[in-house]
């Protein structure tokens, strides 16, 4: 427990009152100051003051800030970052013709370094044609099925997640800026409600750990704010790129709950809300995490 003034007062410390607009008494612990400069040239914004009314965070921090310095160093250099190998692989898929229409991604979108700049920063976002809030994965599969005549990719599968990384890296350094109003508002509100709902036999919400206790250790791990600006994320734990919904699923599972399905509108809404909590942070994926 890091809140020294409450040390020894078991009762007070344990009461982690959550109510909109009240002063928090929980124990957020700010990470050590550190600068994420990729390849010695591009500095990422890893902390930002969030806009009013989105969360109870005084400061939003990129998850990179909570990691050990060795892990941080790996993400600072694209030659060290194993996530970049997958980006290379995705470029092959980008140029590969697939499906009945004889098209590749490149057939319509040209070079990702040109056409995909800024895309990741604004997603999830309302898609007028689909009539709902869509993620990059949904857009990829929409292209594959309606324009290419190809089979959809598995939502959290390798092809999908690496392609997402290729698209994300084109926005690296740009501020996350998802819209939460207009047609996206109800999805955003639903996502927010999910964020604060205590699920499973452990009765934990996202906020229980990632808003009330970021920076604190849970067993051997230091809790981050659960920001998603660095996804897809290369995890040392499983040696591959991990998607946002796969991570969400793992977290919900760890509350001993019945999880939501990756790609479900529930998780899309949650993704929109969680993304908005990091509006202003740099898109920094592919990140490197434990």
């Amino acid at each position, binding site marked *: 427990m890091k809140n020294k003034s409450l040390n020894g007062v078991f009762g007070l410390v344990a009461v982690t*009152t959550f109510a909109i607009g009240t002063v928090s008494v929980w124990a957020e612990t700010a990470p050590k100051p550190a600068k994420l400069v990729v390849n010695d040239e591009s500095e990422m914004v890893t902390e930002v003051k969030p806009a009013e009314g989105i969360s109870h965070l005084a400061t939003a921090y990129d998850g990179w800030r909570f990691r050990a310095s060795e892990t941080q160093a790996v993400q600072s250099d694209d030659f060290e970052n194993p996530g970049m190998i997958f980006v290379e692989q995705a470029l092959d898929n980008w140029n590969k013709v697939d499906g009945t229409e004889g098209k590749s991604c490149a057939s319509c979108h040209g070079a990702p370094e040109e056409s995909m700049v800024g895309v990741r920063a604004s997603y999830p976002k309302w898609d007028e044609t689909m009539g709902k809030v869509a993620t990059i994965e949904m857009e990829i599969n929409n292209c594959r099925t309606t324009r290419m005549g190809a089979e959809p990719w598995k939502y959290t599968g390798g092809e999908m997640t690496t392609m997402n990384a290729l698209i994300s890296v084109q926005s690296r350094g740009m501020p996350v800026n998802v819209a939460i109003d207009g047609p996206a508002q109800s999805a955003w509100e639903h996502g927010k409600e999910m964020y604060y709902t205590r699920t499973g*036999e452990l009765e*934990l919400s996202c906020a229980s750990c990632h808003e009330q206790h970021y920076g604190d250790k849970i067993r051997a791990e230091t809790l981050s704010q659960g920001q998603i600006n660095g996804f897809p994320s290369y995890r040392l734990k499983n040696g591959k790129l991990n998607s946002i919904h796969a991570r969400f699923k793992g977290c919900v599972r760890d*509350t001993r709950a*019945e999880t939501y399905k990756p790609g479900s509108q529930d998780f899309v809404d949650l993704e929109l809300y969680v993304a908005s909590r990091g509006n202003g942070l740099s898109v920094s994926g592919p990140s490197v995490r434990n």
Partner: protein
Amino acid sequence: MKPAVLGMAALIAATTALSAAEVEPGKVVFAEDGSVATSLTGVPGDPAAGRKAIGSKKIGNCVACHQITEMSDVPFHGEIGPSLDGVGERYTEAQIRGIVTDAKHTFADTIMPSFYKVDGFIRPGKRYTGKAADETFGPLLEAQQIEDVVSYLVTLK
């Protein structure tokens, strides 16, 4: 009656007596301050078993969130909840039993899980599988494990 059948009858009687003494989840009586005065089983707790449950990821895993100096042989204690050093001095046994059983009766908004509860959950799952709860669903700790944990915690003075 044959001796074997007699033996069986005695066993059934003994089992019934045991389960009658064990308070079921949901039937625990909490005092206004959240404490639970009566043992959940009537069987004294085993502090060594309680210590093991507190340190084991597969049982209580209390140290995931709480630091306990006496258990420094167990690696990686968390910082989410308060240190449990001296908890046996700050609280009575009944208060500790209440907190371990279901801390929300003592601290309404605590994030501490309720260790002896089986209903009122949102999307309860089958342990850590991510699947929906099924007929194997039970409390996080058994009644006797609660008593074991309590019997260890009261020694932390």
